């Protein structure tokens, strides 16, 4: 199904970019660009949310299809509106002088009751138009459904878990069924690889959407819905939650971050390292103590909060409390994925903070962690960034004030508790601890 011919210039651009394995360049033809741009007129934001500005082959297919549909619809639109305007001009009669009468008696147009041939004609015509659209639709539908089997894939799949009001991403880099990386709100992807997602939820229905990369897929508790995503280019692509999910539905963002393959591999290696305890006596260590007392009942830091008494690591802790969203059949087949009941369903599900400093945002993607957001930081941990300390501390001290939640709901906590009792020093230390963590195996 070819809707347009690719432009030759684009291949040039493609070859000039050597590093990424498959750099994506939007290949819109001229006419479509005009239509698209005119729609975008006056209102292109700094943030990259528009469906008409695709950054992946899938999104571009969707966009092109829509533009063709809109063109076809435009023709019908012009015909119908034109007909109304033409008739209003051509067949209009002046109002009679006498208000009590609508028409002068003698003026009658020809009384036509209908025309069967015409009727059959304009029943068949839209049927044919629809059949054509249906043909291409099915083509596109099954094309998108057919995810190519890539043997060298970096990521087997990512389980996307929506919850009130943030996203968790569990990366399965191999086939062992145990997540290798658990992170929040930022889905870091190697550029040019089609990634299989399974989208689910821990509480209510959410919807996963990165508009520049692909359409959306609902995160329904109790179901894994398959989906695919591909970052065509390096960059950070935001997306909102699009299924109404309560108070902070508007404040539940996530980002797909495209990294060139080598950088992504470096990122993935870092993310798999556990944290090590800070040296005693430092501010970081004081922060760890605060964390252990106040935060560790919900938040996990791999290597620190997940030790049993004998020093072995609790694998379960890695996933905070994955569970309610799982397929019931999987619950028992996959030991690490636990089935957890209602109390934990609504309380305690909190982002894994092991690699917080490697992320660009916090609090469900709504605050920048650093003052100079930059994709580079995913590799070079916090080296360049100036911490957005004020926002982070405000969040820690009184999260519900920063973002509406239901931490005090009578039916179970949803969202982060305010910690207004913490002293300023405690908060400072906590921030030091979280943003200066060191990891096993790092030099």
């Amino acid at each position: 199904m070819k809707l347009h011919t690719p432009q030759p210039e684009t291949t040039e651009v493609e070859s000039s970019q050597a590093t990424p394995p498959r750099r994506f360049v939007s290949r819109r033809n001229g006419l479509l660009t005009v239509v698209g741009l005119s729609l975008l007129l006056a209102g292109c934001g700094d943030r990259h949310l528009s469906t008409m500005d695709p950054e992946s082959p899938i999104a571009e297919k969707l966009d092109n299809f829509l533009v063709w549909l809109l063109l076809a619809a435009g023709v019908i639109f012009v015909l119908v509106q034109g007909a109304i305007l033409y008739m209003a001009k051509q067949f209009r009669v002046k109002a009679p002088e006498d208000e009590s009468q609508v028409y002068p008696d003698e003026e009658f147009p020809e009384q036509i009751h209908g025309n069967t041939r015409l009727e059959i004609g304009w029943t068949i015509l839209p049927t044919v138009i629809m059949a054509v659209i249906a043909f291409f639709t099915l083509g596109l539908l099954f094309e998108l459904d057919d995810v190519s089997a890539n043997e060298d894939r970096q990521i087997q799949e990512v389980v996307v878990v929506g919850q009130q009001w943030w996203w968790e991403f569990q990366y399965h880099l191999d086939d062992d069924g145990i997540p290798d990386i658990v992170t929040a709100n930022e889905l870091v992807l190697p550029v040019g690889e089609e990634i299989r997602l399974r989208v689910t939820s821990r509480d209510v229905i959410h919807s996963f959407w990165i508009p520049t990369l692909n359409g959306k897929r609902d995160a329904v508790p109790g179901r894994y819905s398959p989906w695919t995503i591909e970052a065509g280019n390096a960059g950070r692509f935001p997306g909102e939650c699009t299924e109404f999910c309560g108070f902070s539905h508007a404040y539940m963002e996530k980002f797909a971050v495209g990294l060139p393959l080598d950088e992504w591999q470096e990122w993935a290696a870092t993310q798999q390292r556990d944290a090590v305890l800070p040296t005693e006596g430092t501010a970081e260590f004081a922060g760890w103590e605060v964390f252990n007392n106040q935060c560790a009942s919900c938040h996990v830091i791999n290597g620190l909060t997940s030790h049993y008494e004998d020093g072995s690591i609790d694998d379960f802790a890695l996933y905070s409390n994955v569970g309610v969203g799982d397929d019931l059949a999987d619950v028992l087949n996959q030991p690490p994925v636990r089935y957890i009941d209602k109390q934990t369903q609504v309380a305690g599900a909190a982002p894994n903070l092991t690699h917080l400093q490697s992320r660009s945002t916090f609090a469900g993607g709504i605050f920048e962690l650093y003052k100079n957001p930059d994709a580079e930081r995913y590799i070079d941990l916090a080296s360049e960034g100036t911490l957005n300390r004020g926002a982070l501390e405000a969040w820690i001290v009184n999260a519900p004030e920063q973002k509406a939640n239901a931490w005090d709901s009578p039916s179970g906590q949803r969202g982060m508790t305010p910690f207004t009792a913490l002293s300023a020093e405690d908060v400072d230390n906590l921030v030091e601890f979280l943003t200066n963590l060191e990891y096993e195996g790092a030099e």
Partner: protein
Amino acid sequence: MAITEDRPLALEAGAVTKVAARPLGALTRPQSDVGWASWFTTVDHKKIGIMYGVGSLFFFLFGGVEALMIRIQLAAPDGQFLSESLYNQVFTMHGVTMVFLVIMPMAAAFANYLLPLQVGARDVAFPRLNAFSFWCWLAGAIFLNTSWFLGGAPAGGWFAYAPNTSVTFAPGSGMDFYAIGLQIVGIASLVSAINLIVTVLNMRAPGMSLLKMPVLTWMLLVTQFLLLFAVPVITIALFLLTFDRSFGANFFNVEQGGSPLLWQHLFWIFGHPEVYILILPAFGIISEVIPTFSRKPIFGYPFMVGSGIAIGFMGWGVWAHHMFVSGVGEISVAAFSLSTMFIAVPTGVKILNWLATMWGGRLRFNTPMLFACGVIAMFTIGGLSGVTHAVAPSDTQQTDTYYIVAHFHYVIFGGSLLGMFSGFYFWWPKVFGYKLSEKWGKINFWLMLIGFNMTFGPMHVLGLQGMARRHQSYAKEDGFGFWNGIVSAGAFVIAFGTLAFLINIWLSARSAKRNPVEVGPDPWDARSLEWSTASPTPVHNFDVEPTVEFQDDWWHRKWGENEEGKIVRKAYPADIAQDGSATDVHLPSPSYWPLVLSLSLPVIGYSVIYTFWLMIPAGALFLAGFLGWALEPADDPEAAHGHADHGHDDDHDADASADAADEGASVG
């Protein structure tokens, strides 16, 4: 207008009437059909229709204010006008109000007032059930809105997706009000649907075969059938929700294996026919208006009727297009994608037939015609954007964005509501005996049309730019500020348009009072039977039951063809119309019981939410209403009855045989 009947206060002797005279020994049967009190006991389909109209307009203002609040909040980035919690309540109630408390009852207003007139009947088949429907709807509507003062309105969206509506995630009582309030409104719709179906099928004037019925009658009939089959499905969905919330059932409890998608399926199996329930009455209205103001018969009447029926049938096979991103499986998505596309065909046929009706006609753009043309133009846009999300892959980008918001407002505001306004202007003289001002009508139309397009046109762009629905605010960097500013300005233009309508009513009523102008039975040279009786419609509708020979029979009484095939006048409306002077017409008598019975329902609702002790007054009201109703004959037995065979109980006035058992089944 009033034909005051000389009803004897003393009833005839005999076992039947002895039981009936004072059912509970407390209240005498209301007699008067004039005065303000009569509105509470009336069973006259016209008064009930007017009350539906007034009620729906009241809630239209209510829902409109909610819409304005949303638009103030979103007018600029980082809006501070409404808190998250309040915003969620406001948009939920905006949707619920506009669908269940505005468009549906507004269509019911036209259905109640016009269906009996268009088929040439004296009243609906079951006048007291009709009154019950109205009071039940009003009780449900008020019940729903009392939630604002009782701990917060529902905040789960009008679609109320589980499990966001469970006690865990919606601990307040808002969703209880939603579930029970809609249940009560649903009872009203179901009862009304059955009543109107029986009316149309059974009470047509002699000679009016199904294919001679006006298109409006047809579309309303299809609508009632859709309601008949759709309401029980939402009834079950709402019951499951209430059982979950109030009695600890597990239907939407994921922890126990409950399925959130079950709610979606049940809701949309109701919800998609509901869309056609909203739009078909408007299609019917403009199918009456356009021929009248084009001076031509409707083009392709059988195709108009057929496409309406086709839409009614196909409307049942498309519900899952609301669930393209829910993960229902590729085969379902493909199937529902196709069925959704092909429902565009009968809709397209309708649009082409309206255009063909206008083609070559002698068009006069009075306000009703302006609104009717507005419907064709705006609904076409809604239909076209509808096709873009019938394409399932494309829909994954559009669903739950403002593109969808734009789409369904073009359909429901641009289609249904403009159609209803067309109907208001068209039938106003028939109902009230004076026309609404053309000048203000045009102001009303243009303000609404321009405001409407300012409001909902840019939403297409916003949606494609990635603005998601139901977000309490957006950031400056999102770049949505410019178009949202225009959208919010447009919302206020619509508000001014609505204001113009109210001013129009006020000014026109005042001028009609000061210097009454005789509008005559048929001010627009229209085509169907309601124009063959006096304006305003006399209480008994027709002095004599009309006989029907043709489709558009009234028009054929006024006009004929001479030898050259030229159309010539046979008679003037004033000469052949019925003047409403008959005095011996037997009419169904007013009754308290529909009101009493319907009042018990919200009390039952409060009882489920708060305390079971309330079941005592609720039960008392219910029993009083039910028994009073059952023991009271549908009519006062009366000598003025037109014909002798009184024992024949399937009389068109729904005699006393509308007894306890049968009617009980439909309300119990």
